[in-house]
């Protein structure tokens, strides 16, 4: 069983489209994250949810909207896709929120988004 699974693995879409990436974790963790990794491999946190509540909302365009229907799922919806949104998006989860001891993050396999 994959601990953190995200779908799809690859996503190619045209500018202006709306797309969603889904993420599920079966680890029973309370915290989930979305990260963006650009072409230079820089990892940057976008959002974090703890028990379905938004904890971190970094400076990302409001075209990006996370949704957490329950604590095992954190989906990412992107409106009006732009060329600059092309990147690998990683979902992750951890037992505790930052500051706790159990903040080891388990990452999904990533979704490579290409906007053309």
């Amino acid at each position, binding site marked *: 069983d994959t601990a953190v699974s995200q779908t799809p693995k690859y996503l190619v879409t045209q500018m202006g489209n709306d797309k969603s990436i889904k993420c599920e974790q079966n680890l029973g963790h309370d915290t989930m994250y979305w990260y963006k990794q650009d072409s230079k491999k820089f990892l940057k*946190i976008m959002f974090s949810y703890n028990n379905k509540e938004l904890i*971190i909302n970094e400076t990302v365009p409001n075209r990006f909207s996370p949704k957490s229907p329950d604590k095992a799922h954190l989906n990412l919806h992107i409106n009006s896709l732009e060329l600059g949104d092309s990147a690998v998006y990683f979902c992750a989860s951890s037992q505790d929120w930052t500051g706790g001891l159990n*903040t080891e993050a388990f*990452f999904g396999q990533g979704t490579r988004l290409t906007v053309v």
Partner: protein
Amino acid sequence: GQQVMQIPQYQHVQEGEDFTTYCNSSTTLSNIQWYKQRPGGHPVFLIQLVKSGEVKKQKRLTFQFGEAKKNSSLHITATQTTDVGTYFCAGHRDDKIIFGKGTRLHILP
């Protein structure tokens, strides 16, 4: 704003040589984590350091957390081809998680 600087950005070493990557934070951290990402893969947790001056070892890997809890290092002894990848530190403070930009390790056979 809070920053975590990681150097070097790239490192090419001969197989069998040692390798070190360093992270420096502009502010005191509550803890720091290290991750490894293989080419085409996802980040995988290696270790977490919490205490001032803490040193932890995992086989050929040695992790250190500075006394001021602002800097950290990862040292690999006698690198092997399986060590190829990008090593990231991630500093935690309050409600912030900041990843360093990573050090990409390339092993020359």
